């Protein structure tokens, strides 16, 4: 009976219910967009670190896990390699410079990352070759660069660096392509560590006598299960270093936590607005139907039936709205240009949709309680 009445009413008042479903759809779109933006921005910030082929990152002590402030020299690397339980150590250096498009468009900011060939930190290519020598001019570019420049293996790319007040240009060859490995909101170019050291702003320009200083070291453990033990072991055996796992490292990226908490707050507020809108609609509808509900109770419909009818309607309308919003958002995000930091992952989308399906009807619950309290006598104007 509840299902029959609920669906009949929705079907016979399609316009009214479609209106509220549209509002729910818009709220869903907004919530999903915020979720996608949060994920996109987070991903743009941490993608490289998240996908690192090593469990631990070693920073200079006292630099608050800042990749730009930290300096790790060859001496520390040698000490790290002597720690028992470490399978491999790779130096990784970060800098930002510009990629000059061959067709003369605007320069593209890229994260220029120096890695040791064959060591942790070097991304795996899906096309082309891994880096061969520590000083070669072959580089690996991520899909962000491919999407922006359309480069393929064997193509030349030109990097622009400002050394002091001088602009310098370096021509490198794309030796391999890797999946998206953005860092600090920029697509990434991976060069052998010596090449990176030569090109980066303020680098040693290939001075063979200078110590090769990277920003961090990436450590691959013999047994990844010993993460906590190895962190302690490294900090005890290597001077002046601080060790973090990948998650702690990306959470320490400047602005990362603040940005994520802002977006999460926005998401919660949008959820809250959704609850209020759905609640308001059904509350108004309930108030309009007091006499009708009173009549139904008078002719024998139980509170249970009346309550379930309302709940089925609330859940149905909310679900239709969420479905429309979700499908629309998925279609929209799939067509966004790669430069927009919108990333709707299956998990984020599913979590958000499930949350909307669960939270949306909460607002309508108030109207169910109002329905249950309607007295047929009063509703029919027969009360004294």
């Amino acid at each position: 009976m509840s299902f029959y009445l609920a669906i009949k009413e929705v079907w016979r008042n399609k316009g009214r219910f479609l209106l509220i479903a549209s509002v729910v759809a818009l709220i869903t779109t907004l919530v999903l967009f915020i979720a996608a933006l949060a994920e996109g921005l987070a991903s743009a910030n941490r993608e490289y670190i998240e996908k690192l082929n090593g469990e631990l990152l070693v920073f200079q002590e006292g630099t608050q896990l800042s990749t730009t402030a930290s300096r790790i020299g060859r001496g520390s690397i040698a000490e790290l390699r002597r720690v028992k339980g470490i399978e491999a150590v790779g130096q990784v250096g970060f800098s930002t410079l510009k990629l000059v498009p061959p067709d003369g468009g605007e320069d593209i900011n890229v994260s220029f990352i120096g890695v040791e060939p064959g060591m942790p930190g070097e991304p795996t290519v899906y096309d082309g070759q891994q880096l061969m020598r520590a000083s070669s001019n072959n580089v690996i570019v991520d899909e962000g660069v491919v999407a922006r420049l359309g480069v393929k293996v064997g193509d030349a790319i030109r990097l622009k660096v400002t050394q002091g007040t001088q602009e310098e240009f370096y021509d490198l060859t794309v030796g391999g392509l890797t999946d998206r490995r953005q860092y600090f909101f920029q697509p990434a170019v991976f060069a052998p560590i010596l090449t990176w050291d030569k090109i980066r702003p303020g680098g040693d320009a290939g001075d063979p006598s200078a110590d090769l200083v990277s920003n961090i070291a990436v450590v691959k453990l013999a047994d990844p299960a010993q993460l906590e033990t190895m962190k302690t072991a490294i900090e005890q055996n290597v001077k002046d270093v601080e060790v973090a796992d990948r998650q702690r490292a990306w959470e320490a990226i400047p602005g990362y936590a603040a940005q994520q908490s802002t977006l999460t707050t926005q998401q919660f507020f949008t959820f809250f607005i959704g609850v209020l809108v759905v609640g308001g609609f059904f509350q108004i509808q309930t108030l309009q139907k007091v006499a009708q509900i009173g009549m139904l109770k008078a002719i024998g419909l139980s509170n249970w039936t009346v309550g379930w009818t309302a709940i089925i309607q609330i859940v149905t309308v909310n679900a239709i709205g969420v479905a429309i919003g979700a499908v629309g958002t998925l279609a929209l995000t799939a067509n966004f240009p790669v430069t927009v930091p919108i990333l709707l992952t299956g998990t984020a989308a599913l979590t958000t949709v499930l949350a909307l399906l669960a939270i949306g009807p909460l607002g309508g619950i108030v109207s169910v309680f109002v329905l249950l309290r309607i007295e047929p006598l009063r509703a029919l104007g027969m009360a004294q």
Partner: protein
Amino acid sequence: MIALEAINVTKIYGTGANAITAVDDVSLSIKRGEFVGLVGPSGSGKTTMLAMLAGLLKPSRGQIVIAGKDIGRMSEGKRTKFRGRYIGFAFQANNLVPFLTAQENVDLLLRLNGKFNRQGRQRTLDLLERLGLSDRLQNRPGQLSGGQQQRIAIARALIHEPEVVLADEPTASLDTERAHQVVQTFAELIHEQNRAGVMVTHDLRMCKYVDRVIQMMDGKISRVITDAREISRLAGAADELDGGYVARTNGKPALAGDPMVAVQGI
């Protein structure tokens, strides 16, 4: 056979100094196949009485017995279920579910009672045809006149074969001609289907279709008319006065305008 019985029923609203006795020690019984008009001026207690007979209101004292069960002693949930099974209703207004068609509104009581089958559906069609609504089956209440809506309400009140059929001012929103049509059909169906019917009305002209008139005044039964000629004269007198209980003084029927007074000498 007695279908409905009220035994020493009293209803008091409020407590202490604010207590108002709306119905005061009223007893009545109605047989199957009998159609009773419950009349009286505003504030006489007839609506409160009907609400108690319907199980919408618990009496402060006394018993309401329908189908051998004292509904005043039932829980709210049980009374609701009981109403759906044993009582048929036609109200003054807001009778129908606006988003259901005429046929669906009548079928609603069949669904509620688990009788929505081929036979039940056929009974709906027959009843609506009997009420002259065959061409309005798929219309929703908003597309129907007041009289048509009231006839659908009557069909719904009868479709599930209840023990008792109650109507609260069923002609209040109808013009005279339609009011007569509706109540006449209502009375015919109650007699044909052997139900016990109670109609609360202000309009004494409608009494011409009932078997017994019970007048209430100040919460008590002030008069009962069972003689058909007397009822007919009452309705006739009301007809001349264009209704009944229209001329009132200090909350009570004025002598000059009271059809009950007009037929006093019968």
